[in-house]
């Protein structure tokens, strides 16, 4: 098992190099000169531009730029962005916010998705099941930027139950509404996946045997139906964690959350290579680690899967 984890962590290295190289290249290939774009209508003197280029290594060829980036990375020096702030400090500010948002969204979608999915699956074809299925279809069909605004308007503006935007006041409670919006779409998938899995497992022979042993219905449901149904759901939840971290750009925009998505968006607009790559690198790490955790959880849920040596 330990060997397996070690091997998986070793795999991070090529994945990390590959993604950073790709992202760096794409930022490099963006049209337009980032330095000139910084100054807008009042172009500075050529000497200033040349100095800035040198400061950010923009006068070097691509491979040298990338090599310097890597060298800085391994010396834990992420450099400064175009506004002169250390990138490391920026990351330290925005990542906790997004992690909070993602974790809150993950909990919401897991609790409600699995809960509703379980009930719907056990009552297949009844009113609750049909209602929930229809509602989840509606949620899947409406894009997040519509849902987000609707939630903001209804709960934030009309009902006043939550602050419509987050701004600088970041806490679990202010993030609840954006987390809910972020959770909604994955929630619908978790629900449907759980429901399908519960329906399939309910008719399994071992469930009938469990009942024949004299177990009470709640025990049969929890130990034999739900536990076995969690295997595909956990995979999906783990994979969606990465999506929640990186895919929050729209939600963070709507609710003005000072998180990774917002920062990444700004950096891309400014062709700020080092910042974009730094953010993406951390996201890649999050993805890889989330997937590793899913694999470990998977083995715990299904003992037939054993990661050999």
């Amino acid at each position: 098992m330990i060997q397996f984890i070690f091997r998986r962590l070793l795999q991070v290295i090529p994945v990390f190099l590959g993604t950073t190289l790709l992202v760096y290249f794409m930022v490099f290939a963006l049209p337009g000169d980032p330095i000139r774009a910084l100054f807008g209508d009042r172009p500075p003197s050529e000497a200033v531009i040349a100095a800035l280029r040198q400061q950010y290594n923009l006068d070097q060829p691509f491979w040298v730029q990338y090599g310097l980036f890597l060298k800085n990375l391994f010396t834990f020096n992420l450099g400064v962005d175009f506004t002169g702030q250390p990138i490391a400090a920026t990351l330290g500010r925005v990542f906790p916010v997004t992690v909070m948002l993602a974790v809150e969204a993950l909990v919401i979608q897991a609790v409600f998705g699995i809960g509703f999915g379980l009930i719907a699956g056990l009552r297949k074809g009844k009113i609750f099941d049909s209602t929930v299925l229809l509602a989840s279809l509606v949620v899947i069909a409406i894009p997040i930027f519509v849902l987000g605004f609707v939630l903001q308007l209804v709960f934030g503006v009309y009902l006043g139950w939550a602050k419509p935007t987050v701004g600088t006041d970041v806490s679990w409670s202010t993030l609840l509404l954006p987390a809910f919006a972020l959770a909604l779409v994955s929630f619908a998938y978790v629900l449907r996946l759980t429901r399908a899995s519960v329906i399939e497992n309910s008719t399994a022979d071992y469930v009938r045997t469990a009942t024949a042993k004299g177990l009470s219905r709640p025990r049969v449901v929890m130990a034999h139906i739900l536990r076995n149904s969690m295997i595909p759901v956990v995979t999906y939840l783990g994979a969606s964690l990465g999506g929640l971290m990186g895919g929050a750009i729209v939600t963070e925009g709507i609710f003005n959350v000072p998180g990774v998505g917002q920062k990444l968006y700004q950096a891309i607009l400014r062709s700020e290579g080092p910042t974009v790559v730094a953010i993406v690198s951390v996201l890649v790490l999050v993805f890889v680690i989330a997937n590793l955790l899913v694999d470990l959880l998977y083995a715990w849920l299904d003992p037939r899967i054993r990661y050999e040596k």
Partner: protein
Amino acid sequence: MTASDVTITEAGTPANRPLLEIRDLAITFNTSNGEVNAVRNAHLTIMPGETVAIVGESGSGKSTTALAAIGLLPANGRVSGGQILLDGEDISDAPEKRMIELRGNTIGMVPQDPMSNLNPVWKIGYQVKETLRANGRPSGPDDIAKVLAEAGLPDAHRRAKQYPHEFSGGMRQRALIAIGLSCQPRLLIADEPTSALDVTVQRQILDHLEGMTSELGTAVLLITHDLGLAAERADKVVVMYRGQVVESGPSLELLQNPQHPYTRRLVESAPSLASRRIQVAKEQGVEAADLLAPAAEARAADNVLQIQDLRKVYKLRQGLGKSSDFAAVDGVSFEVLRGTTTAIVGESGSGKSTVAKMVLQLEKPTDGKILFDSVDTSLLKPSELFKFRRRVQPIFQDPYGSLDPMYNIYRTIEEPLRVHKIGNKASREKKVRELLDQVALPQSTMQRYPNELSGGQRQRVAIARALALDPEVIICDEAVSALDVLVQAQVLNLLADLQSNLGLTYLFITHDLAVVRQIADHVCVMEKGRLVETGSTDDVFDAPQQEYTQALLNAIPGAKLMLPPEVA
């Protein structure tokens, strides 16, 4: 012995009162085609400590009746009439709470398929533990180990910490028996408890079950499709046919003097009871041989298949690039005479199917030769191999899996003709019609799809497809194992007829010695990749030389039952 011992059993039931009495039971299923009466007017009585078997083919309602007795009908089924009296209490419409009290404690169950009836994500010990706990019994590690050990699992403490996938089929069934009997129920429902297992394992498990239940004084409701097994194990046999009880009575009496026509058919076709090869084909063959003795001798030397020192070694991965060799087939040699049937028998893992695959050229042998018509098949060029395939055709075990569900029957049977570019559209259609006639399927079958046919009909389609290319050799890999006894008998008769009419050669792979007796001329017994005994079927059955063969023969259920010759 005092008077009270005579009339009152331990649990306080008068000894003359039935433990379970089923009266006029009717069970209805709601299906998309409306209501279906799965069981009608079923009667059944089990006295305390008695073993009663329900016998019938699939769909006869035998399992449904038993499931109703433990309140486990599928969601769309319900008891629509009659009573199920457990110790005088009608439980046919008892509330779920009462049923939960009864299950485990009073009525235990050993289900059919050991592979699917243990939850794969829980340790065996836990699955025993929750049973004990749910029924208010001590459930410490020692209690769990005791329960498992009593069911014949060695090293129970360690075994309890393993998961089902680490158990063999026989061990899983022992674990399920342990669970079923863990709370010492007064009635045990055993639903085909061993039909998924090898015969020798089957025998051990049934012996053990019998020992345990007689020690505990547990009554057993045994459900089986095998009349021989039922007669051997049960005091009374109840025969069900299409949802109704057609006959019941003491086992031996019912077997020796069956009244109902269906029971008679069952007795006649029970493979475990039949003791002779199907004669249709042979009589004709013998007569011909008598008239043309020299020709018969010439034919006798005509080996269509010669297997010489065949070996197949698989590499087993052991992680980190290490591997060990596993000889699935180890030095097997035998010959197959043209126009006869040779059976390869053995338990799962004996390598018999691997031999079949190599003969079919679906696997390459590691070593040794397969000569077909004296030509070494390993030297065949691709074009010659294509021709070889035309002459050697397979019939596989699972008629559900080996027919393409998206092909109608016409297309299924016509496909080999098309692949081998034989005839034109009209002549191919004519051929398909002839083939359907040969396997006794109506012409209207052509337009139907596999899912619209029964298991027996599908296997007939598979036979028709194998015959389409007029092969010389047909390799039947467990070709009748998935079928009910009556259907099995029909298919075996069909195969025997085809052999005498078309001069076919069969290589018959099976684990079922009873089937071998009915169809084979020669037998090869395999154990762990090696050929342990070969000979004519009569010789092997009458005087088995190897201990292993004897064990296999003894394990045939009902083998030792004496039957009047006209029935057998």
